[in-house]
């Protein structure tokens, strides 16, 4: 008798909450987060994961995402695609097997190359953040793109940098793989278009000591050295060794996020001295920085992956929004809903759908970005730059 009473109480316990959040109990929306989560590029993949987690937590806080008549709890399934084409292809399949049609990620160019045909076959929406010349292709309409390549912003950054640091010649340095060459070559074109002569220098990924390459670069006596898309750790060492070698010109970075890390590795602002860089989002904006606080509040820990989390977040948020508009997580319906959504994020601001010119398909998020300047060892902060619609 006692037992039965106890059992009845147990049953009754969840009754009240069930009445208000019954939807959350019987419906789950799973989304994937993909990218390299181990090895040298781990931070990019972990940033994707953090962004997806935050968007999911926000949605869940409001009860969940509406799908048809139900409101569903969002969970994130991470996948370590190891910065390889096969890893991303396998990841697409592994996520598809869990009935996941929406993927935040992957990151690297090899991953983007690998996932495109497979995700198309699996009917999945995927958001890659690769700086690849073919990050989007019209024949893969379910692929979206997070971080616009240098074609979208290099010119603006160079024009601004020229005002602060007069320059006639620049040496670009980047890894010799797709992630390096695809971006450095576009940067070089943009420099040339601004009347600056360029030399490009590629190193083998995995190089840890850049002293010889620094010596080689300086032999050409460039006014400016641009570390392009070198990983932040590498770029930090390059900066440190350039300064040790006596290079006094400005150092640029027309690549990806990671300036904080470069400052840390190089040894501080005094070492960096004159530096300008492209930020995927206006990181100086307090509203943007508030993302980290919100993450901590909702998930009880710090986000992993640095400012890349901020850049990836809008994609995750907009995807969930598109799900609620489409009323389903079917990839084609979500993609269609996404295309109709205005590009907008509560923390970052307004943007545009771009990519038509470069890729022939307008599925690239072009948000306000930032131009950072450090002059004479003083961080002047990141200037907000509004994107121009194509």
């Amino acid at each position, binding site marked *: 008798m006692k037992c039965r009473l106890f059992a009845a109480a147990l049953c009754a316990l969840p009754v009240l909450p069930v009445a208000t959040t019954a939807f959350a109990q019987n419906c789950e929306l799973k989304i994937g987060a993909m990218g390299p989560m181990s090895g040298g590029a781990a931070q990019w993949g972990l940033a994707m994961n953090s962004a997806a987690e935050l968007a999911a937590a926000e949605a869940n806080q409001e009860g969940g995402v509406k799908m048809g008549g139900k409101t569903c709890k969002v969970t994130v399934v991470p996948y370590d695609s190891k910065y390889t084409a096969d890893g991303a292809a396998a990841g697409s399949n592994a996520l598809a097997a869990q009935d996941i049609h929406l993927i935040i990620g992957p990151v690297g160019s090899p991953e983007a190359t690998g996932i495109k045909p497979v995700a198309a076959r699996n009917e999945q929406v995927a958001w890659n953040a690769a700086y690849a010349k073919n990050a989007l292709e019209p024949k893969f309409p379910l692929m979206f793109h997070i971080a616009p390549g240098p074609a979208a912003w290099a010119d603006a950054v160079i024009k601004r940098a020229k005002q602060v640091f007069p320059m006639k010649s620049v040496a670009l340095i980047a890894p010799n793989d797709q992630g390096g060459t695809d971006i450095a070559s576009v940067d070089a074109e943009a420099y040339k278009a601004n009347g600056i002569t360029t030399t490009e220098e590629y190193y*083998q990924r995995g190089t*840890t*000591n850049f002293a*010889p390459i620094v*010596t*080689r670069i300086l032999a050409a006596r460039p006014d400016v050295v641009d570390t392009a898309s070198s990983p932040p750790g590498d770029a930090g060492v390059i900066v440190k060794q350039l300064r040790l*070698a*006596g290079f006094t010109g400005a150092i640029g970075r027309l690549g990806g996020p990671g300036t904080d890390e470069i400052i840390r590795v190089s040894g501080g602002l005094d070492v960096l001295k004159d530096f300008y860089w492209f930020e995927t989002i206006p990181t100086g904006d307090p509203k943007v920085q508030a993302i980290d606080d919100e993450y901590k509040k909702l998930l009880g820990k710090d986000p*992993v992956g640095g400012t890349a989390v901020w850049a990836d977040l809008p994609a995750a948020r907009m995807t969930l929004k598109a799900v609620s508009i489409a009323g389903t997580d079917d990839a084609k319906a979500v993609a269609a809903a996404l295309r109709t959504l205005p590009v907008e994020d509560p923390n970052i601001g307004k943007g545009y759908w771009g990519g038509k010119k470069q890729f022939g398909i307008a599925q690239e998020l072009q948000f306000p970005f930032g131009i950072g300047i450090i002059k004479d060892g003083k961080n002047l902060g990141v200037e907000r730059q509004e994107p121009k619609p194509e």
Partner: protein
Amino acid sequence: MAEFLQAAIIGISLGAQYALLALGFTLIFGILGVVNFSHGGFYMLGGYVAYSCVAGLGLPYPLAVIVAVLATAALGWVFELFLLERLVDDHLATLMLTLGLYLVISTGLLTIFGPLSMEFAFPVTGALHLGSIYVPRENLIVLVVCLAAIAALWLVLFRTDLGRGLRALANDRAVAMAQGLRPKLLFPLAFAIATGLAGLTGALVTPILSLSPGVGDPVLATSFLTVILGGLGSLEGAALAAFVVGIVEAFTSVYFGGSIGALVLFVLVLLLLAFRPTGLMGRTVRGA
């Protein structure tokens, strides 16, 4: 000319670092017959231990380096004694064990410290400028410590009973054991010395370069290249080859660029092997 001298200086300082790594690698191979795939893991671990001591406990850097050496040596000792020892004669199994350890170490570091590079700077900075040539002070210090460590290792191996025992085990295990040397004591010790050297290199070099969970990967490739060139199991060869690798890397990178430079180095190694299959100072190679 300035460029030439600069390349030579860079090459020598690279060589000293490679020598510390390669000596440990070849020591483990020579004595235990184990190809240590976790060598890069101990390098990283050395860096992170030193970092934690400086940033977390506020220890002075030199003390932190010593702690890093002791910690990596201790882990090496434990790993050899409790895991590797059981399968020490099965070279495939030991290869897999060290590989598994490497994966565990790098995942552990990634989980604890996160993926970003640490703020870990060498306490001495700046460079000596001689005309158009420069020598970073920190590199000089590292070079001196590396050379001192190499000298100390040499003293231990060639001037003490312990070293004679280790070398006897490396030459012929059966004979050495018949003479009463105890591998159960000496194997973990050799492994600990080698991992301690890797940890020392990590603690010294990562503040000059960078410290993140990916920095151990290239260590293995460099160690491979160096011991191939030097002749497996030959300590003198490993030390000599490390400087050759460092200098060749410096010159090819300065004159041909980073990507081609690596290719030149690899092809050079292949050519050397075509004419001298046992490496620079190698003797007959023990079948692993």
